[in-house]
């Protein structure tokens, strides 16, 4: 029931906002998101760290076809559910400074998005997974297309078609597998795992690509990333946060839940290709980020680089790599939301995100600098911040897979420092510019957004064992399926 509540609560709250057209959609949305956060915390608290799926519920969806609305939470789902419930409240809070036209729809869409994301992370049926995977696109598409920047139409259209195109292949793969299930057919993920064991290397090879392209576009992995920077820049920041903080994890989660266990032979053949692309993305994205002037675009490329690392770690198929990928999904979600929030707060005051026109903000607003530096340290993987745990384990996993991949991926810790420190310096330090003079101090809602995020950066850095031992049984179980 708990899982169902996690999915339903945001939908109901969203509908209430839409139907009542209340004057204060922000408040309702944030209350809903915080209740959802409590539910997530309750799930964490009640979760028994073994390999099993918990808090499950299953209803017939299309009984004749064996398709069920079946959800549940295991260790891997848990960390992503926690991520979703942890960041959405702060995404909503961060928007309090803006007055959106048609605000009820805006906030309802954010909540619908959250429900869809929870659905993806908890689905135990491949078609249900696919359903949520696609449905999650709709709210974010509307958010970007209605409240986005000048080029929103072209950019969001491209984004939409691009990702839709990717999932088409996944759908074909899933239908193919489904048709192979015996009797009346079943689309339960566990059933599909078993069916997949009977596939030969060639079949798995095709399926590998069908799935990989879908997830690679979503994450994105080089060279499927060109939709991302534009979309992140043009979308309203709340949507950008949802996309980068949580939505892209649908891709990495898909690799773990769908791709690895279903086509292990395919991964044996093509894994190196996938890692190579991911590692190229790490270096390529980082190098591009070095010269970016638009803060949002810079963060977008950095996110692309970081996700390459997560993807490479997953394909290393080691315990460290997978544990690291999950920790890094959590860390990346928190950090990237924090960074985008800061870019938004700066933009609201200066109407600019251009690093060459900012500077000296710390002179008026040292608070913001402190939060910025803490979150920046998380993204550059400073020990005792959340980013370190993930990157350390990921790099160790990649290193175990291949020393050279490990060494090249490791460049992220150097290049990451290059672009992140540059961003902080150009915006916060130096002399004030015309735009940053009289920079207003942080408002309450901004502090309430940044403080918890900064706190989480440090908390998960000092106490990664909040999650590591809890998710380990599920990851180990997955590894036995693969091997």
């Amino acid at each position: 029931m708990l899982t169902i509540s996690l999915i339903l609560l945001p939908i109901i709250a969203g509908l209430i906002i839409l139907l009542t057209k209340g004057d204060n959609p922000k408040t309702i949305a944030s209350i809903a998101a915080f209740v959802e956060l409590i539910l997530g915390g309750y799930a964490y608290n009640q979760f028994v760290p073994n390999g099993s799926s918990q808090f499950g519920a299953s209803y017939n969806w299309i009984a004749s076809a064996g398709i069920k609305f079946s959800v549940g939470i295991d260790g891997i789902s848990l960390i992503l559910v926690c991520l979703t419930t942890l960041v959405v409240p702060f995404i909503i809070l961060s928007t309090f400074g803006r007055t959106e036209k048609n605000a009820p729809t805006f906030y309802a869409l954010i909540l619908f998005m959250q429900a869809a994301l929870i659905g993806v992370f908890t689905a135990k049926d491949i078609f249900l997974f696919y359903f949520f995977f696609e449905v999650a696109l709709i709210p974010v598409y509307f958010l970007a297309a209605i409240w986005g920047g000048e080029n929103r139409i072209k950019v969001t259209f491209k984004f939409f078609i691009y990702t839709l195109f990717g999932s088409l292949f996944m759908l074909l793969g899933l239908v193919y597998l489904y048709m192979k299930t015996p009797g009346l057919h079943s689309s339960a993920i566990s059933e599909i795992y078993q069916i997949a064991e009977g596939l030969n290397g060639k079949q798995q090879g095709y399926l590998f690509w069908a799935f990989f392209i879908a997830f690679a576009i979503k994450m994105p992995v080089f060279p499927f990333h060109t939709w991302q920077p534009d979309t992140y820049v043009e979308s309203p920041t709340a949507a950008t946060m949802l996309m980068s903080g949580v939505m892209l994890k649908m891709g990495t989660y898909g690799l773990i839940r769908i791709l690895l266990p279903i086509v292990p032979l395919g991964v044996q053949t093509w894994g190196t290709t996938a890692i190579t692309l991911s590692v190229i993305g790490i270096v390529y994205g980082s190098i591009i980020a070095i010269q970016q002037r638009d803060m949002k675009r810079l963060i977008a490329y950095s996110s692309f680089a970081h996700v390459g690392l997560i993807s490479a770690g997953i394909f290393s198929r080691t315990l460290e790599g997978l544990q690291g990928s999950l920790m890094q999904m959590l860390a990346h979600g928190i950090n990237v939301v924090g960074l985008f929030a800061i870019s938004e707060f700066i933009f609201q005051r200066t109407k600019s995100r251009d690093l060459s026109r900012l500077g000296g903000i710390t002179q008026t607003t040292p608070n913001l600098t402190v939060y910025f530096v803490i979150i920046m340290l998380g993204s550059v993987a400073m020990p005792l911040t959340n980013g370190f745990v993930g990157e350390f384990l990921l790099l160790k996993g990649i290193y175990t897979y291949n020393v050279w991949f490990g060494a090249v991926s490791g460049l992220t810790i150097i290049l990451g420092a290059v672009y992140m420190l540059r961003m902080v310096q150009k915006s916060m330090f130096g002399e004030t510019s015309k735009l940053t003079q009289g920079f207003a101090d942080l408002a309450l809602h901004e502090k309430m957004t940044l403080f918890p995020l900064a706190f989480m950066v440090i908390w998960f850095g000092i106490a990664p064992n909040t999650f590591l031992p809890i998710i380990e049984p599920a990851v180990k179980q997955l590894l036995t399926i693969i091997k």
Partner: protein
Amino acid sequence: MSLITLIPLFPLIGFLINGIGFNIVPKNLAGIISTAAALASFCCAVVLFMNFSGEVQIAKVFDWITVGKLNISMSFQIDQLSLLMLLIITGVGSLIHIYSMGYMSHDAGYGKFFSFLNLFLFFMLLLVMGSNYVVMFIGWEGVGLCSYLLIGFWNKNTNYGTAARKAFIMNRIGDLGFLLGIFMIISHFGSVEYLDVFEDLGHGTVAGDKTIMWITLLLFIGAMGKSAQIPLYTWLPDAMAGPTPVSALIHAATMVTAGIYMVIRSNALYSLAPETLHIVGWVGLATALLAASIGIFQNDIKKVLAYSTVSQLGYMFMGLGVMAYSSSFFHVMTHAFFKALLFLGAGSVIHAMSDEQDIRKMGGLRKALPITFWTFLIATIAISGIPPFAGFFSKDEILAHVYEHSPLMWGLALAGSVMTSFYMFRLLFLTFFGEFRGTKEQEHHLHESPLSMTLPLMILAVLSAVGGFFNVPHLLGGDSKLANFMAPLFAHSHAVAHAADESLEKTLMIISVIAAILSAGIAYYLFIGKKSVPVADSKVAGLQKVIYNKYYIDELYDTIFVKPISALSKFFYSVIDFLVIDLAIEGIGKLVKGLSSEARLMQDGRTGVYLFVMVLSIAVIIVWTLKDFILVGFK
């Protein structure tokens, strides 16, 4: 809570109070809180040292990262090495905290400064107290962060900010090596705990093992960054942008010696890797010579000291390269005393000169700043290796071991120590002797620093004077106390340099002392006898110009790394991303668009069109979803 855990806890609490309450805590209180935290740690360290039984103590605080069989715990190890480092760090650290209360008293960022200083102490203590390589790495990166924050302390100045970033990034290059070294340790030994690793080495690992060679080399790359060795040394001179107490604490006495600490800590590994030791020794020597030669021509009081630090660190690595671990450590210790003193003295001078750092504009300061002068003089004699001050004992020990290993290395090292003596006395004479060359206003303003600043100077001067007696060699009637104390650290080591032959040691000692004194004499002749003053920057020419410009190494790095990466960044962004990948994808998109006659409308942004697209898209999803069911239905 054990005493061991309290040591890093005090500065952490100090940091949190001053950091979180940076606009609540009153200014004076901030300095007192931080200094009290440093002193409290020092007291704990002293108690721990007094009660030390010789047994290694491990204090586990909590399990940090647990994945499968790998458990990385936050735990501390107290043994001879960590105790000595603790005493140096908290001792010198406390003095520098006291000094800073005077030095930074006029600065608007007083509280911020002290919170950073405490944070630095915390990480430095983690670095030396950790019982495994990952905790060392936390400290290792953490001190790098504090170094970054403090170099760029005056963040309005963009140049300082650039220097801070340079330090952080160059350190990160080293850190990547360190990290890969840790991965190799995990893969090979299955643990990161020092005791486990060294224990494991006893089971038949032989000298020359390739894995051990790679581990030690990778860890050494980390040391190159942190301890400013060729090729990763150029950040340290730039780091002088930070406030002077920072240069004394971080960039002279403690953080930059982390690399030496790491090698001594890993002596069991290094002793099994003769190839690595060879590299360590020669890198150290080359750095010592290169930096000393640059130091001769620098005119910024702090830059001279910075190159001197790089050079002295080179000596320490040279000592490590010949497995003279305890001698190198001895030099770490004496260097902490006299180099901290030199920097603090320089700070006192800069303070008196209203922020002037160019020694060409100083001169004759000994009258106005007597305490600063006398203490600076002691430190200069100490660093030059003239007996009986501290540097003499530690440097000669290293040189004697180097001679046993390779007379050629010794000869070059001797040349380095001649240069050291020269540039230090040059600095002393130009600053404190002769006529005052600054402005009238500066002359009027000249004053000795307050007690909070001169007290640490005097204490450090005493330590620089007598610090050598901690480890007087047998030759001079001593009993090598320090070396004996440290001996258990090398129990796991495959080989350690044995004591030098006494008659030989004596000869070498005499030669190097004479050389140092002669060199000081030349400096005296030039700068006091002939009263020469270094010429203005524009008049520097020839080889001197090349050296004055630090052999153009910064420019070289800029040309071969920074600029190409920037160009690559632009190329990737505007050519590969936009022209190659995106165009290919748009091409596919256009192909699809071409099929629709209405496609052009897409681009004009009319609401109706995009709504249509949206609805269409949703319809597509629904149809697709249903299509499966329909297909199934047919089956």
